């Protein structure tokens, strides 16, 4: 849907920009020696900047910050359209009347919560607006508007909101204040992230201070800018790389950044279907209604812990640790942890490897009644190597093997390699997926499958880390040192961070620069996030389409 993007550079501009973009990328990944005058990286081509809508996840966090309502109110909104596995891709969203109706109901609920909190409103406005004093009401509108719309209101906007106040302050002033709040929370300045450019601009233009504050806060906290960030925008300090990095470093150390990392990684690793996942409980009675939530909590804790202690790509792929409480430890057949609740547990490194052996990940990438070497192998290709195997041709009749309890899984998939036609694609997936066979469809270790000792040997081909596999740790060790996996992880982050697929030469330049901070010396996800804000795609808008 490229033609739908507002500020999409013309084709001729792209061609002309290519060489420049690549040139500008020469110093990628140096990560040091920045000055206040540092130009954005990959400056010739910031790529398109389609209008973004705040996602359901971001909506809940933002509206909670603003009004004190519980973030779970967002759950009554329809789910976000997901594409490329992420919830924030701008090309996909649409709004129905039902959706708009939910925005209305939630906005009213949030407005009621805020206006019941006189102290909160007084702190915000600098006076108590609930008596209806005109100057104080105006101060409240300006102050709340600045937070909700992430910038100072224009005179016209202020006037429109005061007129609405007059219409809805019936019977009491608080009703009018609630009317203003409910309106602001449905307006495009709140639900979307409009970044009006300079009409007819023929070259990339800088995002203004408020725009950068909004980009930065949603990237790192999944919510609107706090007071410090708005003040920095108004002081003009975000216009320089140094000023931008100062705020970035502050927010990277905020606990909310960990939530964002969990959110990103959970989408990247396709954990989300877990919430509604069902398994065949006649075959796997250990799986109960409470299992999905327990496995999700385990993964959240694992990812948060990784974020706190240096989130390298290698630790994500290989760390032999997890988190469990007594019930979950028993589910996995592990010794009960000492202490209450979820505890960090060291695992056997010949069996466990980071995200690859999380129960959540393994259960999602399996069927209800059997494992799936295809789904697991496909995940590695598509999500970790960014080389999704070609889909099955429409002409064939796909027949997943029937569960024959007398045969282990890999024998049931034998046709994939016996038939040369099937093999042409399945050799890309199944031999990777077989290395996961020590883990059953609900994510637990198993020594046997169909009463036969598990054969977890496989092979990895067509990558920069080819070789024989035997079990998940052997696969993880290879992936952890693969440059292709590093670039793929950076690509996934790029898509999430910018809410779009990579499309231009400038995008490829940015991904390369991101990858080098993820996998270079001392690199990790935090360094890559930090690098993101130095990109032209972050600091600049593309030229206006003619």
């Amino acid at each position, binding site marked *: *849907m490229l*033609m*739908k993007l*507002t*500020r999409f550079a013309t084709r001729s501009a792209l061609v002309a920009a290519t060489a420049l973009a690549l040139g500008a990328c020469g110093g990628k990944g140096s990560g040091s020696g920045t000055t206040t005058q540092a130009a954005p990286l990959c400056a010739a081509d910031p790529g398109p900047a389609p*209008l973004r809508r705040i996602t359901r996840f971001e909506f809940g966090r933002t509206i909670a910050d603003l009004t004190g309502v519980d973030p779970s109110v967002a759950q009554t909104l*329809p789910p976000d*359209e*997901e*594409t490329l596995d992420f919830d924030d891709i701008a*090309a*996909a969203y*649409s*709004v*129905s*009347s*039902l*959706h*708009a*109706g*939910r925005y*209305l109901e939630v906005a009213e609920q949030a407005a009621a919560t805020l206006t019941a909190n006189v102290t909160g409103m007084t702190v915000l406005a600098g006076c108590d607006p609930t008596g209806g004093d005109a100057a104080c009401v105006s101060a409240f509108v300006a102050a709340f508007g600045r937070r909700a719309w992430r910038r100072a209101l224009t005179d016209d906007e202020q006037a*429109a909101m005061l*007129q*609405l106040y007059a*219409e*809805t302050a*019936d019977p009491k002033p608080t*009703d009018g204040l609630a*009317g203003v709040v409910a*309106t602001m929370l*449905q*307006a*495009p*300045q709140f*639900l*979307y992230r*409009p970044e*009006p450019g300079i009409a007819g601009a023929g070259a990339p233009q800088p995002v203004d201070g408020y725009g950068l504050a909004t980009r930065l806060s949603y990237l790192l906290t999944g919510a609107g800018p706090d007071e410090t960030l708005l003040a920095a925008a108004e002081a003009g300090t975000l216009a320089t790389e140094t000023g931008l990095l100062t705020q970035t470093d502050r927010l990277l150390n905020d606990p909310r950044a960990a939530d964002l990392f969990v959110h990103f990684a959970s989408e990247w690793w396709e954990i989300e279907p877990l*919430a*509604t996942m*069902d398994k*065949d409980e*006649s075959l796997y009675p250990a799986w109960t*209604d409470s299992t999905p939530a327990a496995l999700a909590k385990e993964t959240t804790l694992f990812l948060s812990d990784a974020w706190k202690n240096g989130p390298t790509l290698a630790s994500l792929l290989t760390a032999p640790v997890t988190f469990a409480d007594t019930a979950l430890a028993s589910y996995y057949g592990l010794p009960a942890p000492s202490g209450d609740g979820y505890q960090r547990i060291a695992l056997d490194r010949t069996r466990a490897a980071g995200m690859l052996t999380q129960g959540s990940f393994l259960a999602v990438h399996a*069927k*209800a*009644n059997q494992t799936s070497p295809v789904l697991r192998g496909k995940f590695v290709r598509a999500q970790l190597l960014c080389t999704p195997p*070609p*889909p*099955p*041709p*429409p002409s064939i*009749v*796909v*027949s*997943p093997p*029937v569960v024959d309890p007398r045969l282990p899984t890999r024998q049931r998939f034998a046709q994939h390699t016996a038939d040369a036609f099937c093999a042409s694609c399945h050799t890309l997936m199944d031999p990777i997926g077989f290395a996961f066979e020590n883990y059953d469809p609900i994510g637990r270790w198993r020594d046997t499958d169909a009463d036969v000792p598990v054969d977890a040997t496989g092979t990895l081909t067509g990558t920069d880390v080819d070789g024989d596999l035997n079990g998940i740790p052997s696969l993880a060790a290879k992936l952890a040192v693969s440059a292709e996996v590093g670039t793929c992880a950076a690509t996934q982050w790029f898509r999430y961070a910018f809410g779009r697929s990579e499309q231009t030469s400038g995008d490829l330049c940015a991904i390369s620069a991101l990858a080098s901070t993820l996998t270079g010396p001392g690199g990790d996800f935090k360094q890559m996030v930090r690098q993101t804000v130095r990109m032209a795609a972050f600091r600049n808008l593309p030229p*206006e*389409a003619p």
Partner: protein
Amino acid sequence: MKRISRRAILRGAAGAAIALPWLEAMWPRKARAAVTPKRFIVMFSPNGTLPTQWTPTGAETNFTLSPILMPLAPHQGDLLIVEGLLQEGGGGDGHQNGIGGMLTGSPLNPGPFAGVGAPPAGWATGPSIDQRVAQALAAPTPFQSLEFGVQVGAADNWGRMIYRAANQPLPPTDDPAQVYTSVFSDLHTDPVALAHLRARRKSILDAVGGEYTRIGSQLGSADKQRLDAHLTAVREIETRLTTSLVDNNPACHDPTVTTVATQANDSFPAVGALQMDLLTMALACDLTRVASMQWSRSVSQVRFTWLNIPDGHHDLSHRSDTDSDAVNKLTRINIWYAQQMADLIARLKNMPDGAGGTLFDNTLILWSNELAKGNTHSRQDAPYVLAGNAGGGLRTGRFVSYEGQGLPHNNMMVSLLNALDIPDTTFGKADWCTGPLIGLL
């Protein structure tokens, strides 16, 4: 403030003709009972069917129901079964263009959803038939249409069949409690408070709309279009607020919704039953005249454990025609869906319409599937079951085959519109429509 339930008001109004002053203020009298409205319902079930087990045998007015359609036997005289049409569709993979074209008769745009063996596709390029009906009827009801679903899954084009217009999918609500809150809240809100709330919301939405116009004017054309689409949705809510809820049907009452784990696989039948109850009551209260019922989604992996079938439906649908285990299970799954269709018909037949008949008398139901056959993704000879004669708009008790004539299903859609007194001569993509379906009505 004393709360007066809607149920009490309706009983009062119907029983003793009491003139309640605020009732009149809230719902201005309209002479709506004089005309019995036509209604249109779509039901969807996924993953194709088994033509050998689905197709009836015999002559047009003297036919024998197939194994899959057997649950509909009590209603055989009210059915019009149509076979032999090509269900048009394009763009994306077989399931995507199947569900996207099923009700729109239009292909999908290119877009962000990467399917299997096809370029990535987006949303459909035209409105679905129910939305065309809603637009043409322009009923003075609070909702132009209501979209009900059961475990419809992710918000992508495999899970959307209803389109208000090109690129504007309407998501079904798959939580009965949310339907109850959004649709029936007027029935249990004090009328005075309700009048105040409506006036207030009108002011708020006016102001919200003003901001969409303001910001849209500052953006480029593609971004502005997205805000315009949002503005359209806001305007629809405003229209609803100024629409008076009039009904003269004593059978209309505030429904009850029991709590159920809406997304749990084994809740599938229970959620569906609740949704069909709510759908029926929404029609009885004349909250809408157009509705849809979306069971799961294309590529549905619902496991029919209540039929002792542990396999995912889509996995089963790809097994071979000679796999007797799969054929047996798929037949039973499709029989179950036919039973739901029969139950929906029965609900309508059992619900008075307030004018001396039942809801079913003036209703037309279309049951369709995104595919004809699951394991080939074929859309040729797509399975359609129509029920109800829409107040005399079509002749039922028939099985009509168009096999071998190469006719597109868009033609059937034209005829269905005509049966509902909508004089359209084409539907969907122009190339895929040659006029009404001769001999259908």
